[in-house]
């Protein structure tokens, strides 16, 4: 058989099957649309017929108020985004280092290994809110002259402390998911332990944990709002300030929408990226993995 020269013309039978499948797909789309309309209509009905709907709409969904507070809340969000980026980068780098240290077998690193274990145990086990309060009010009490005491810095530091521990655990799981035979293959080629770790184990480990790491980064983005506890004027704090005068809670809704505007595209982007890389776990490279009917 020569490549490309395929004289096959679909038979009427194949055409009939295709028509049937197309009809089924159309039906599926129709069912999905009807189901969506019904659910949305039901929610709208329940909410708008609630006894307090009129007042709630005024208090939470006032368009004029939303427009008024948008600049302040958006400016607050800018602080959230900066904290998110810095905390994310530091968390990724240090988390990876901790995971490498913890899984290494080098004797000289033993004290560091103990530190990594204790660190992860502590900061994974203590609620983020508590870390924020202790760092935010505890560190300034030491009156260290070189230590910045702005709320944004201390809040960001607390978030970094906790997320580094979470990320370290994810990376460790990734490293341990790489089969030992991979190390054997690398060592048999003459690579040193460090070369095998850097060239063979870590790249595969990172691929294996892309999805959980990405979801950690998304949740870091919204947890950056917790720095408002310490008084840093982020999106949440800005919204809070805006509600104090008139007890109109629309600014909170504005802040929520702004957070969603960042996190939803981010999630989709990561999904698309990892799909393009063919990193979707078990299914990569398996032909005919999906049973069709």
């Amino acid at each position: 058989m020569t490549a490309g020269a395929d004289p096959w013309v679909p038979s009427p039978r194949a055409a009939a099957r295709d028509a049937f499948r197309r009809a089924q797909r159309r039906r599926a789309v129709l069912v999905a649309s009807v189901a969506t309309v019904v659910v949305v209509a039901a929610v709208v009905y329940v909410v708008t017929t609630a006894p307090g709907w009129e007042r709630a709409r005024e208090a939470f969904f006032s368009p004029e108020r939303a427009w008024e507070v948008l600049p302040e809340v958006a400016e607050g969000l800018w602080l959230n985004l900066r904290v998110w980026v810095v905390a994310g980068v530091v968390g990724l780098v240090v988390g990876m280092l901790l995971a490498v240290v913890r899984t290494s077998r080098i004797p000289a690193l033993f004290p560091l290994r103990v530190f990594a274990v204790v660190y992860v145990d502590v900061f994974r086990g203590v609620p983020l809110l508590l870390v924020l309060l202790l760092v935010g009010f505890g560190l300034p009490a030491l009156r260290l002259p070189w230590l910045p005491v702005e709320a944004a810095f201390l809040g960001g530091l607390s978030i970094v402390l906790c997320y580094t521990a979470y990320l370290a655990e994810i990376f460790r799981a990734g490293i341990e998911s790489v089969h030992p035979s991979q190390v054997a293959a690398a060592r048999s080629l003459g690579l040193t332990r460090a070369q095998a770790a850097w060239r063979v184990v870590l790249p595969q480990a990172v691929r294996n944990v892309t999805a959980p790491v990405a979801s950690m980064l998304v949740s870091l983005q919204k947890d950056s709002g917790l720095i408002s506890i310490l008084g840093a004027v982020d999106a949440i704090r800005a919204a809070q300030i805006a509600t104090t005068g008139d007890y109109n809670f629309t600014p909170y809704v504005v802040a929520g929408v702004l957070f969603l505007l960042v996190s939803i595209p981010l999630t989709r982007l990561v999904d698309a990226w990892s799909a393009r890389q063919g990193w979707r776990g078990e299914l990569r490279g398996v032909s005919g993995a999906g049973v069709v009917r």
Partner: protein
Amino acid sequence: MSAGAPGGAEPLLSLRDVRKSFGAGADRKVVLDGVDLDVTAGSCVVVVGSSGSGKSTLLRVVDLLEEVDDGQVLLDGEDVADPWVDADAVRARLAMVFQQYNLFPHLRVLDNVTLAPRVVHGMRRKDAEEAGTAMLERVGLADKARAYPDQLSGGQQQRAAIARALVSGPELLLLDEVTSALDPELVGEVLDLLLSLRTEGVAGRPTTMLVATHEMAFARDVADEVVFLHAGRVHERGTPAQVLGDPQHDRTREFLRRLR
């Protein structure tokens, strides 16, 4: 219906001009290029061919794990390739054994065997376990019923997979390179079992089989018909003596020569 009845009886399975390709556009690769094939109830048809010839895809098409591009898959005269046919009901009448066993690692051997009888065929646990135990006895694994798959050797796992396939009394057993993943010294026990399924059968009926294999000895000893598949086309078919002993086509000769 007698085994391999010439002419008279309608075949249990007939493939007519089956076409299957993967990918689209420039990447489109034709895997089955108009295959015709018949399996009579009670008979054993063995498909041979080099890797990439389309053997596995052929079996997956029969088990409705792949949708064909064109052509007919007739089971008892009904075209089961039509998308309006209930595929689950069709698959419940067939059984497949895979190269990599594909036992469920979280279930004990007996639970692997009784899953389909209980979930698909609605048997009560007690009855299913009775039937499952009998089938494990038939394949010589009665003492492994409580073990987990990873506690068995490859040959034992594959025999357990065969028991799982046979327990619901399938009309047709599809065997996809079932010895290819085994260590050489474990191949024999599986082939012996398949041979006895042909000669003694299950409950007195020889098992109807469609087999894709590299084991020429098995094809020679067991097949009623040998089909040589190359690049998605049937190049030669006939009795084992004809196809393996006196091949008429260059492709077949070349394939057989490279096996020696």
